[in-house]
């Protein structure tokens, strides 16, 4: 009895030794900063000024945030960027169905569509900046050559800029969605299609009543990760537009960065961080509940 106690104790100690590096790292670099974000969001502070200058101001940051026009604008832009998710879902799903069965060189195409996703966002943003150049960029030269005399100025236009970002985002993510969908397609049992054949289903009916419902867990997963990922888009905005023109492409994380590191308002930025944390938390909870409820086949 004492020996088995000793063994269990040893096993537990070994277990903690093995997870110690990760646990320590996550605690120092993630868990403590999470707690600090919560605390700092109730303060007014400039981190250059030193710890003794931290001033506790209660909920002031939050009341100010919801009257802050730029913050509201960045929230709105975050919502606009969410449109990229259904667009990407539809394109990727169609492409996945075609690639899975109806073409040769399937793997080559997979690699091609996946390339933007693993490429440097910085380089992509730089290329698109030039492609979308208002007067002599290839996109507008093409549009003018087919008779559109006054094409939008894309990234230089306060209305079109955010939609330009959105379309680049679709282009970047298609590959990721595609890979996940193809994996999902391969998990659908063949006998379902055979049964549908016996019932005389057309190809469209099979897609509509077998493939799409069977993929609903995949779609649900992609939508949820897509939402969380969209809230994190930073590199693209920073390099492509720096939130401009006139804050028309700023998003929450970009405004947070700007507030914290350009305007040096640490407390105010932390309040934004907390809102971001809470939003992601809510989405995660919806995911946990929704997984059981909304996924149907």
């Amino acid at each position, binding site marked *: 009895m004492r020996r088995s106690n000793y063994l*269990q104790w040893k096993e*537990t100690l*070994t*277990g*903690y030794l*093995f*997870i110690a590096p*990760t*646990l320590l*790292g*996550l605690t120092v*670099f993630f868990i403590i*900063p*999470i707690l*600090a*974000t919560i605390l700092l969001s109730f303060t007014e502070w400039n*981190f250059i000024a030193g710890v003794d200058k931290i001033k506790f101001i209660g909920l002031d940051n939050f009341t100010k945030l919801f009257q802050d026009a730029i913050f509201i604008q960045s929230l709105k832009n975050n919502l606009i960027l969410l449109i990229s998710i259904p667009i990407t879902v539809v394109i990727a799903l169609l492409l996945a169905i*075609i690639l899975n069965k*109806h073409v040769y060189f399937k*793997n080559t*195409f997979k*690699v*091609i569509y*996946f*390339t933007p996703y*693993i*490429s*440097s966002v*910085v*380089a992509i943003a*730089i*290329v698109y*900046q*030039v492609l979308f*150049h208002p007067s002599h*960029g*290839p996109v507008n030269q093409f549009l003018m*050559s087919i008779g559109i005399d006054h094409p939008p100025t894309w990234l230089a236009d306060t209305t079109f800029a955010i939609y330009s970002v959105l379309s680049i985002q679709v*282009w970047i993510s298609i590959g*990721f969605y595609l*890979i*996940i969908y*193809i*994996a999902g397609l391969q998990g659908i049992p063949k006998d379902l299609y055979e049964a549908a054949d016996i019932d005389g289903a057309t190809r469209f009916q099979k897609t509509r009543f077998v493939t799409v419902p069977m993929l609903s867990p995949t779609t649900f997963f992609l939508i949820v*990760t897509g939402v*969380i990922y969209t*809230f*994190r888009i*930073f*590199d693209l905005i920073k390099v492509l537009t720096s939130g401009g023109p006139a804050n028309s492409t700023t998003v929450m*994380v970009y405004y*947070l*960065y700007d507030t*914290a*590191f350009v305007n040096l308002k640490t407390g105010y*930025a932390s309040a934004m*961080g907390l809102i*971001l*944390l809470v939003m*992601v938390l809510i989405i995660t909870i919806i995911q946990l509940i929704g997984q059981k409820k909304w996924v149907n086949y």
Partner: protein
Amino acid sequence: MQIKAPHSFSKMIMTMIIALLSIIFMLPFIWMLSTSFKIEADVFNYPIQWIPQEWNVFENYKSVWSGDYPFALYYWNSIKVSLLTTLTSILASACAAYAFAKINFKGRDFMFLLVLATFMVPGQAILVPQFVLYRWLGLFDSHLGLILLGSFSVLGTFMLRQFFLSVHNEFIESAKIDGASHFRIFFSIGLPLIRPGIATYAILRFIWTWNDYQNPLIFLRSNDLFTVQLGISKFADEFGQYYTLIMAGSVSAILPLLIIFIIGQKNVIEGIAGGGIKG
């Protein structure tokens, strides 16, 4: 009832349509590459000259690589940071993954949940305290700080744990009966058995670290510590009008990764599809 034979003619037509779409899809990359080969005056010629009229490859790449911006140094920095991050991250993740999969210790499930919970946190939400902490710890503006930031990966722990779970317990039990400690089992049995998992994770971690822009932007200040991503964005800011040079720089930033991706495509695609993961 009839069993449909795969329609090879319609399959060929479909392949051609998809191939055409793929070319359109890749046009931004093709434009980037072809522009990096041109002389500046030809960049915006219309109709677009996909094949340069006048080649200027050597001069463009030479002025990028040996100009005021030390690209070779940025490359070296990126290689160093990405390799070391990948290495330490594999080691730390594999240890934790082994414990979560194969060691039966008290509080294991709670600890695993705790680790998973940090995964959902968007990096930017905790950027400010991380920054303050880094200044206190003296990790600000150093490669060590950057490497540490990427070394403790929930994703790596989660992925490698999946691989350890598929290792049969008999291997471990019999080694234990022979008197081997968990450390020996981990190094001599565990790690070799999950080599495919390590390869997949290593490639993904390398790609993500190489492409990372946000962390170098915030945690580095000195020019000579810059990584490729940071270097290229500063370069583009400064040489905004020299499109051929910017494109040559962009090609240089993307190319090594593209090669790694094409060599390891099977690992990358299966890793992403299997875990449904996103860096």
